[in-house]
């Protein structure tokens, strides 16, 4: 019988006690998964997947503001390249810049962007990936569709537990021409958060927000980016929303920061942290959740029964690892 290394061929190399797989195509990845399954092995358990072989920087479609890109491309490198074409991935949460395209798209919180009015949409408009049974899935084209259940959801935001992304068509936006900061103070943190949500609903978007308490007032610093006209319109809108909830304009602001790791939380988590006197820094600010620094980590929620049964049918052999 062939050794594991022989079965995997040129895809695999030994690294210390474990193996590293570096497939270059969907077919190679699919056959590697088959080998692991047959030998009852799993990714993450002595076998690491390196998606560096999916390194294609494909077509940049300037009209549709999208780019086709391989899962192994580092996000920071991608951003540098697309900036040359005056496009950007937008205002992502800090950890997104250290990810690769594959891990970004698979991340349940980082792989999404905010669009007006405060809605979340996946950064990937289209995705290709490999399922544990070796099937190569490419999602439907078009910005939105009505073609059955969204199979892309097995991959997008899936954390790599039901399938692995190999390439994606990512949504881009114009490189901002302008960035402005504004400081407002509010009578309470409830007012401050309501003003932010009201602004989102009304059509504003924030690159970043910092909220902290000072001398009995809650201070909110907002950063807005976009074209010159957009920044002007949105700042005016935010100003009016702030005024309607006890907000007072306090000047231009100066890039305050909060330390610590950022993770996705609800608005009520943010409210609780503020009530305990914390300062918070918010990214990817949407009406449903935000990515925040300064807010305690949520308690562990076990995967839902629905998720467990999906894992059972799509990855019975647990080739992609176990659920927590």
């Amino acid at each position: 019988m062939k050794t594991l290394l022989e079965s995997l061929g040129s895809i695999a190399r030994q690294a210390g006690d474990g193996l590293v797989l570096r497939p270059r195509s969907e077919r190679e990845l699919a056959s590697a998964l088959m080998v692991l399954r047959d030998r009852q092995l799993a990714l993450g358990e002595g076998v690491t997947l390196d998606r560096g072989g999916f390194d294609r920087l494909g077509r940049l479609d300037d009209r549709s503001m999208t780019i086709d890109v391989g899962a192994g491309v580092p996000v920071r490198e991608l951003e540098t390249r697309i900036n040359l074409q005056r496009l950007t991935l937008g205002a992502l949460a800090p950890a997104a810049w250290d990810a690769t395209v594959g891990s970004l798209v698979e991340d349940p919180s980082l792989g999404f962007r905010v669009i007006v009015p405060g809605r979340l949409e996946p950064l990937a408009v289209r995705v290709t990936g490999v399922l544990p049974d070796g099937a190569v899935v490419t999602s439907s084209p078009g910005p939105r569709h009505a073609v059955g259940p969204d199979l892309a959801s097995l991959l997008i935001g899936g954390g790599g537990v039901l399938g692995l992304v190999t390439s994606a068509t990512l949504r881009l936006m114009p490189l901002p021409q302008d960035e402005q900061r504004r400081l407002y103070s509010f009578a309470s943190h409830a007012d401050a958060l309501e003003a932010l949500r009201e602004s989102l609903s009304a059509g504003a978007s924030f690159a970043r927000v910092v909220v902290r308490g000072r001398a009995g007032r809650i201070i909110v610093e907002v950063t807005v980016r976009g074209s010159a006209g957009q920044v002007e319109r949105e700042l005016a809108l935010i100003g009016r929303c702030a005024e309607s909830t006890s907000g007072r304009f306090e000047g231009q602001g100066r890039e305050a920061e909060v330390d610590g790791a950022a993770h996705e939380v609800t608005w009520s988590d943010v409210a609780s942290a503020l009530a305990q006197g914390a300062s918070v820094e918010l990214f990817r600010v949407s009406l449903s959740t935000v990515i925040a620094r300064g807010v305690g980590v949520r308690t562990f929620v076990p995967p839902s029964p629905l998720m467990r049964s999906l894992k059972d049918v799509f990855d019975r052999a647990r080739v992609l690892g176990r659920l927590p």
Partner: protein
Amino acid sequence: MTIAPLAGNALPPPRAGVLDAQAALAAIVQGRLSTKQLDRVSYSRDMWPLAMVWLRQGRVPPPPDAVIWPGTDDEVAKVIRLARERRLAVIPFGAGSGVCGGTVALHGGLSLDLKRFDGIGQIDPTRRCVDVGAGVMGETLERRLEARGWTLGHFPSSIAMSTVGGWLAARSAGQLSTRYGKIEDMVLSVRGVLGTGERFETPERPFDGPDLSQLLIGSEGTLCAFTGVRLRVHPRAEARVFRAFDVPSVERGLELIRRVLREGLRPAVVRLYDPFDTVLVGRQKPASAHRSPSRRSGFEATVLPGLLKTLASQTLGRPKLLNPLAQLAKKSRLVFMFEGEAKHADAEDRAAAAACLSMGGHDLGEGPAREWFHKRYDVNFRLPRLMESGTFVDTMEVSASWDVVQDVYERVRAAASSYALVLCHFSHAYAEGCSLYFSFVGSAPSEEAIEERYQALWRSALSAATSAGANVSHHHGIGLLKARAYQDSLGEGRHALATLKRLFDPDGIMNPGKLGL
């Protein structure tokens, strides 16, 4: 798939399996079950134009054996479990406004009407959401939200005749989708019963894995029956600002929309009509001018339909002669509506207007855009009249990225114009593309030839669209009509879909035949 509509007045009796289970089923829902002919015929179809042609020809699409009206999640679960035991098909039914044959009972069974799930919960103003029953009619929901100062922002043309559950099942889009998104963009979590008979409720963000709602939304009754949903709501718009333009060509109009969105502007409505559609859009009668058949005069009720029928087959039956007339019309109409906070909506309107003027748009002021808004649901009244005149009328909506939209438009027009009169408008715009909404009006020398022409039209138009880079549907869904094209488009994704089906509906009882499952 070939479907055999039934001829004649009498339906075959309900299948033995349903009759055997009738008493047990009725007991679950406190007697709310019917096997009456009238109910079975009424639930045998949706608004699929081909089914309407069959009805005109005196044929009935395959009917369900019974209609059942559960009122609680527990009742739905029990009905589905019993149906599973007895291998009876279950066809979730909203309001039957679907246009792809999604509710046709191919294998008989139970039509599961969910309209008793009609609760609308309290609005949570902090979280900006509301819990809604799957059976709530669209218009009722929007009226109730508006009365409390909120909106869902979902306004399909069929708002008065569709349910929230139907919207979820078919991934519906409303006229204000450019701002508020499609229905799937508004969902926080969904609730219902799987084909296994198990109840489920999907988690809300933050997720630790994929968004499970999205794996069920769009399943058109083939995986589950939705019973409720938590939806995002927004404060009702303080102001609406309207403006229309004439633009020299479709291409220029598309470029304008693209630029407006690229500039970060988010109109609630943006619609571009191709030159042929532009000619017609200005000539609509208001809804009040449409009279129901029972109120028509003798001439209108008897003589006129015959005349129209002859006229239709002479004109619409020869689309190759009609479609070239489109070349005579040049201008395209572009309609914008911004809504929200008054000053912001004004500022967005001014910015969009500046962009349009700089690119050769001719400002028509607010009149034509307001008029469109006023008549935005009139399509509901025009359809039946056209169908009565011996034609078929259908719409095909697909979406594509900006780089291929123009090509999709031209190729579908070319492919479809041998079979029907072709009009198109572009709506539901996104930063990376938009939806193309084709209207087809056709006829044939005889009723017998109509179905053949209809099928040939769809094959040709859909294949032109997908080969030019569009998807199979943007918001009407798949049903029976597009099942083959849909399955073809999936590639190896077909296995993933089949796996979902095996998991959620292991006995294949949920809406069999739809989505090609």
